C-alpha cells in the first residue's frame, strides 16, 4: 500500500514538474532561511554560556542617581576601584576580575603594532575557565610587567616563534614580558579580549582615575559567587560597604539628607550581558527584540512557502479529481486519500529540506557577514538540532498537505462522473494569497523605512561640517601628549592640510567626562566637559548662537591648570545654557561659572548642540573649554585635491615623531556611517528577506495563474472562437489575480505603519512616516505580479483556440 502511495507520489511530482519545482524551491528557500535564523538565534543565546559555573558568575552594575536624587541610568559596570574592596570584604564572593579595555601601541624589534589590551585581576583565568597554550596560568599575571597574548595576536606579532619570555614596548615607554599565550577569546561573548595585562601595571599610570576614582566606570567587573549565595545579599553588602568606605559626598551624606546615594549596586548574570543589556552599549550587542524580529521573519518566509504548497496542492487536487474519483469508486476511503496526499507533501518537504540544508550551508558565510556574527553550520548536525529539523520537516509537510487532503476527502466521485468541476477551496485559497502578499508588502515597506531612517540619520546635521575632517586618535598617551603641540604644528605645515586642532572627543570615541557646573545665583547642573583647542570650533564651521568662540589672542581664554577641568573662557552648548536657566543664549554671555576646586570661568559664547554620537542617543548638556591635558585627538581638515599625497605625508610626519606607534586615523564621515551600520545591516537583512518572500509569493501566484488558465483553457478557447482578443482575455485573468494583492495592501499598510512608528520611537532624530514607502512597496509587488501573470497568460491567450478545445 505504502509503495503504491510512493510511486503515485513520485510520478505525480514528476508529471507536474513546473509546480513541483516551484514548491520545492520555495520550501527549500523558506527552510534554509529558517535554518539560518535558527543558527543565529541559538548563537545569540549561547553568549558567555561557556563560562564555567555561569549560574553564579555575575556582572557588577549600578543604578545611578543625579545630584537631585533622580534616576539617571543603569551603568553596566561598577567603579573598578570598588572591585577588589568588595571581593576582600564580602564573604560570598569566590573569584573576581575587572576587565578594562584599552588600545595601546606595542613595539617589538622596531616594528610597531596596534594592540587591544584588557587590564585584569589574577583570578581572571579561573573565573573565565581559560587555560593557557603556553605559560603558567597560576603565575602569568603575578608580575606587574607581564602580558598574556591571544594566539592570533601572538602569531601576528611573533610569527611562528614562541613569544614566551620576549619583551615588548607599550606606548613607547613600558617594557612588558610575555608570560603566556591563550586561545582566542570565544566569539560568543559580550567581552572581547586580545591580551591581558595585570591591574597593577604601569601602563595605566597616565590615567590613574580609571583604577582609583569612585567616579570612574571604565570597564566591567565580573564576580563568581560561592555556591548557594544569594546575589541580592551580596549586592546589599556592597551597598553597605560603599556607605562605610566610599566618599561620603557620594553616599553617606546624600542618604543622611534623605536622598538616594549616587550609585546603588546590583548584580546581573554574566550570561545576560549580551541580550539583556542596553543595546546601544556596544555595536556587537544583540537584543531580545532583534531575535524576535528574526524569528518572525523566518516564520513569515516559511509560512509563505507553505501557503504556496497548500495552494498549488489544492489546485492540483482539482486537476486530479479524476484520480480521486476513481480511487473512491474502487473503495478508497477518506483516510486512504488523506494518507496519500500527506505522503506526497511530506516527500516534497523532505526533498526541500535536503536542498534547504545545502542552500543554508552555501549562504552561511554571507549571512554571518551580514549579521556580524561568526556562525558555523556544525550546529545543524548536532543530534538535538537534527531532531528539531526532522520533526519540523514532518510538521511542515503535514501542514502543507492538510488542506489539499481535506479537499480530496470531501470530493464525491459522482460529481466527477456527472462532469462537475469542484470549486472547493477557492475562498480559502484567496485568503491565503492575501495573507502571503500582505506579509510581503509589509516587510518590503518596513525595509524601505529602515533604509530611509539609516540614510536620514547618517546625513543628519551634526551641527558642524564633517566633510574633509580627519581624526588622528591615540594622542592621549603620555609620549604623544608631551609633544602633541609640536605634532600639530608639523601637521599644519603639510601642503593640503587646511586646518589643525586638538579635541577631547570625536565621533566614534565614546569618552565621557562629567562634572558639576555652578552659577553664582546658585543654579547648578551635571554637565559634560569637552576639551578642545581654540581653533577647533572655527575649523568645524561652528557659528556662535550668542557671544563669541575662543580667541587665540586672548591669553585669559586659555588659563587653566592640570588640576582643574575648565579654562578662563568656556562655551556652552544650547542644552547646557537652557539647563542653567538662561532664557536666551544672550543672557548667558559674560556670566561666571564655577567647576571643582572653585575654578572660575567666564561664559563667552553659546553654540548649537554638536552631535558626536549616533542619532539613537540624545545630545548632552556640554561645556567646551581649552584643556590641553585632556586632548585625545588631533583633528585635521584636509583638502580634497591630492588627498592621497596629503594622507601619505600625514603618515610620514607621524612616523617621524613616533616610530614606535602606528598611526590611527579615520575620516569623520566614515565614522558617522559606522554608527548606522546596525541599521544598515538590519535594512539589508530585511531587504533580502523581502526579496525572497516576493520571489516565493510571486512564483506561487504564477503557479496558480498557470493552473487557472489551464483550467479555463476551454473557456478561453470558446471566447476566442467567439471573437475575444488576447488583450481582453489577459485583462480578465490579470484582474482576477490583482484583487488579492490589492486587498493585501489594505491589510499590510496599517500593521506595518504601526510597527514602524514604534521602531522609530527609538530614535531621537527620526524621519516622519509618509505613505510613500507603503505605496512603493505595494506598487512594486503588484507590478511583479502583473508582469508574471501577463507573461504567462499572453502566451496562453495567443495559442490557437483549437488546441484547447481539442484537448478538453
Amino acid at each position: 500500500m505504502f509503495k503504491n502511495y510512493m510511486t503515485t507520489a513520485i510520478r505525480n511530482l514528476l508529471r507536474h514538474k513546473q509546480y513541483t519545482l516551484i514548491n520545492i524551491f520555495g520550501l527549500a528557500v523558506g527552510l534554509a532561511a529558517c535554518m539560518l535564523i535558527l543558527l543565529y538565534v541559538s548563537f545569540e543565546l549561547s553568549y558567555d554560556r561557556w563560562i564555567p559555573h555561569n549560574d553564579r558568575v555575575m556582572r557588577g552594575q549600578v543604578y545611578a542617581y543625579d545630584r537631585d536624587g533622580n534616576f539617571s541610568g543603569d551603568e553596566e559596570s561598577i567603579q573598578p576601584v570598588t572591585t577588589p574592596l568588595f571581593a576582600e570584604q564580602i564573604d560570598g564572593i569566590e573569584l573576581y576580575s575587572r576587565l578594562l579595555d584599552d588600545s595601546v601601541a606595542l613595539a617589538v624589534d622596531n616594528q610597531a603594532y596596534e594592540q587591544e589590551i584588557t587590564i585584569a585581576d589574577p583570578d581572571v583565568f579561573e573565573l573565565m575557565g581559560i587555560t593557557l597554550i603556553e605559560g603558567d596560568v597560576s603565575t602569568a599575571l603575578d608580575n606587574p610587567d607581564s602580558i598574556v597574548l591571544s594566539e592570533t595576536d601572538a602569531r601576528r606579532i611573533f610569527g611562528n616563534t614562541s613569544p614566551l619570555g620576549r619583551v615588548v614596548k607599550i606606548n613607547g615607554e613600558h617594557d612588558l614580558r610575555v608570560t603566556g599565550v591563550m586561545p582566542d577569546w570565544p566569539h560568543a561573548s559580550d567581552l572581547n579580549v586580545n591580551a591581558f595585562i595585570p591591574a597593577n601595571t604601569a601602563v595605566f599610570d597616565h590615567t590613574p582615575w580609571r583604577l582609583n576614582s569612585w567616579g570612574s566606570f571604565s570597564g566591567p567587573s565580573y564576580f563568581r559567587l560561592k555556591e548557594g549565595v544569594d546575589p541580592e545579599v551580596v549586592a546589599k553588602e556592597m551597598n553597605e560597604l560603599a556607605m562605610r568606605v566610599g566618599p561620603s559626598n557620594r553616599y553617606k551624606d546624600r542618604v543622611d539628607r534623605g536622598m538616594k546615594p549616587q550609585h546603588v549596586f546590583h548584580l546581573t548574570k554574566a550570561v545576560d550581558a549580551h541580550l539583556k543589556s542596553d543595546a546601544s552599549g556596544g555595536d556587537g550587542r544583540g537584543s531580545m527584540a532583534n531575535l524576535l524580529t528574526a524569528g518572525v521573519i523566518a516564520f513569515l518566509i516559511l509560512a509563505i512557502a507553505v501557503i504556496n504548497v497548500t495552494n498549488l496542492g489544492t489546485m492540483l487536487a482539482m486537476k486530479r479529481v479524476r484520480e480521486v474519483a476513481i480511487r473512491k469508486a474502487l473503495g478508497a476511503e477518506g483516510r486512504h486519500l488523506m494518507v496519500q496526499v500527506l505522503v506526497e507533501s511530506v516527500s516534497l518537504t523532505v526533498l526541500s529540506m535536503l536542498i534547504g540544508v545545502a542552500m543554508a550551508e552555501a549562504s552561511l558565510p554571507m549571512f554571518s557577514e551580514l549579521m556580524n556574527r561568526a556562525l558555523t553550520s556544525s550546529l545543524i548536525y548536532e543530534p538535538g538540532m537534527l531532531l528539531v529539523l526532522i520533526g519540523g520537516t514532518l510538521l511542515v509537510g503535514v501542514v502543507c498537505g492538510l488542506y489539499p487532503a481535506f479537499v480530496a476527502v470531501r470530493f464525491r466521485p459522482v460529481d466527477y462522473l456527472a462532469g462537475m468541476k469542484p470549486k472547493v477551496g477557492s475562498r480559502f485559497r484567496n485568503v491565503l494569497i492575501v495573507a502571503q502578499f500582505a506579509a510581503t508588502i509589509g516587510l518590503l515597506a518596513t525595509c524601505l523605512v529602515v533604509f530611509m531612517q539609516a540614510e536620514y540619520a547618517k546625513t543628519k546635521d551634526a551641527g558642524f561640517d564633517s566633510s574633509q575632517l580627519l581624526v588622528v586618535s591615540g594622542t592621549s598617551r603620555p609620549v604623544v601628549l608631551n609633544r602633541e603641540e609640536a605634532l600639530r604644528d608639523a601637521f599644519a605645515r603639510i601642503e593640503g592640510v587646511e586646518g589643525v586642532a586638538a579635541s577631547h572627543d570625536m565621533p566614534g570615541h565614546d569618552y565621557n567626562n562629567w562634572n558639576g557646573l555652578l552659577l553664582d545665583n546658585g543654579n547648578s547642573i551635571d554637565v559634560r566637559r569637552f576639551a578642545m583647542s581654540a581653533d577647533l570650533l572655527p575649523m568645524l564651521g561652528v557659528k556662535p548662537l550668542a557671544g563669541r568662540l575662543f580667541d587665540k589672542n586672548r591669553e585669559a581664554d586659555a588659563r587653566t591648570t592640570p588640576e582643574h577641568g575648565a579654562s578662563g573662557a568656556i562655551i556652552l552648548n544650547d542644552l547646557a545654557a537652557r539647563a542653567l536657566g538662561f532664557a536666551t543664549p544672550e543672557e548667558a554671555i559674560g556670566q561666571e561659572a564655577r567647576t571643582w576646586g572653585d575654578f572660575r570661568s567666564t561664559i563667552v559664547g553659546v553654540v548649537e548642540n554638536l552631535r558626536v554620537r549616533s542619532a539613537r542617543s540624545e545630545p548632552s548638556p556640554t561645556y567646551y573649554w581649552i584643556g590641553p591635558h585632556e586632548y585625545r585627538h588631533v583633528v585635521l581638515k584636509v583638502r580634497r585635491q591630492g588627498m592621497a599625497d596629503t594622507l601619505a605625508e600625514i603618515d610620514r610626519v607621524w612616523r617621524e615623531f613616533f616610530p614606535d606607534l602606528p598611526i590611527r586615523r579615520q575620516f569623520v564621515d566614515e565614522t558617522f556611517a559606522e554608527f548606522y551600520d546596525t541599521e544598515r545591516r538590519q535594512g539589508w537583512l530585511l531587504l533580502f528577506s523581502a526579496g525572497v518572500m516576493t520571489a516565493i509569493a510571486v512564483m506561487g501566484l504564477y503557479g496558480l495563474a498557470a493552473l487557472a488558465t489551464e483550467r479555463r483553457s476551454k473557456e478561453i478557447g470558446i471566447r476566442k472562437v467567439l471573437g475575444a482578443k488576447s488583450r481582453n482575455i489577459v485583462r480578465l485573468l490579470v484582474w482576477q489575480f490583482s484583487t488579492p494583492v490589492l486587498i493585501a495592501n489594505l491589510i499590510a499598510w496599517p500593521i506595518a505603519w504601526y510597527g514602524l512608528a514604534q521602531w522609530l520611537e527609538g530614535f531621537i532624530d527620526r524621519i516622519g512616516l509618509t505613505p510613500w514607502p507603503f505605496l512603493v512597496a505595494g506598487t512594486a509587488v503588484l507590478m511583479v505580479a502583473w508582469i508574471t501573470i501577463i507573461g504567462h497568460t499572453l502566451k496562453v491567450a495567443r495559442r490557437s483556440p483549437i488546441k484547447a478545445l481539442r484537448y478538453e
Partner: protein
Amino acid sequence: MLKLHNLSKVYRTDEVETAALNSVNVEIESGEFVAIMGPSGCGKSTLLNIIGMLDSPSSGDYIFMGENVAGYNEAKLSNIRKQNIGFIFQSFNLIDELTVEENIELALLYHNIPASERRERVAHVMDKVGIAHRAKHMPSQLSGGQQQRVAVARAVVGDQAMILADEPTGNLDSAHGQEVMEMLQQLNAEGTTIVMVTHSPAHADYARRTINLFDGHVVTENLRAAE
C-alpha cells in the same frame, strides 16, 4: 440481488430542481445480465450510480442483498461497494500515472489483501482479458479497446458479485465493442451479475432483460426469449 422501491432522485442546483428519477421500481436477480436503455438525459447514469452506491436516492428504498442501504452514509456505502461492485466506465477512467498492472491492483489495494496474493490475482485477470503482455505499459500507450479491457480486469479482480457498466462501448469502434461485450457475456456466464447502460440495441441484445427509461420513469421491461 437488489430491489429498488419507489426510488426517486432529485438534483437541486441553485435555481432548478431536476427530477432525474421518479418512483422507479426495479428488481435484479443474482446472476442476471440487465441492459438499461433510453434517450440521453433520461436518468440512466443516475440510476446506475445509485445502484453502484456512488450516489444516494432522494427518497424510496434500495434493498441490496437484503439490506436497506438508502439512508447509509458514505463510509458504510463505500464498504459494501468495494466488497460487491465493480465499475466499467465509458471513458475507461484508468489512472494515467499508474501502469496497467498497478491500475488493476488498485481495486485490491483497499481490501487488506497481502501483496503476494494481489500480484497473483492481477496476473490471473490480465491473462483472462488478454492484456498480460502490456502489464508494464502506461494507459496512454494502449488503444481504447485495450484500455477498456484493463478496466474490465480491474472491475472483476476483486471477485465482485456485480459489475456496473456505463456505456462501456460508447468510446470504442464496433470490433472492439464486440470484444468487450463478449467479455461481459463470459463473466455473466461465470455467475457475475451485470447491469449495463447502452445506446446500442445490438449490444443490449447480449442482456437477458432490457429496462427502458424515459424522463426518469421505467417505461417497459423486455425479457429476451431464451435462445
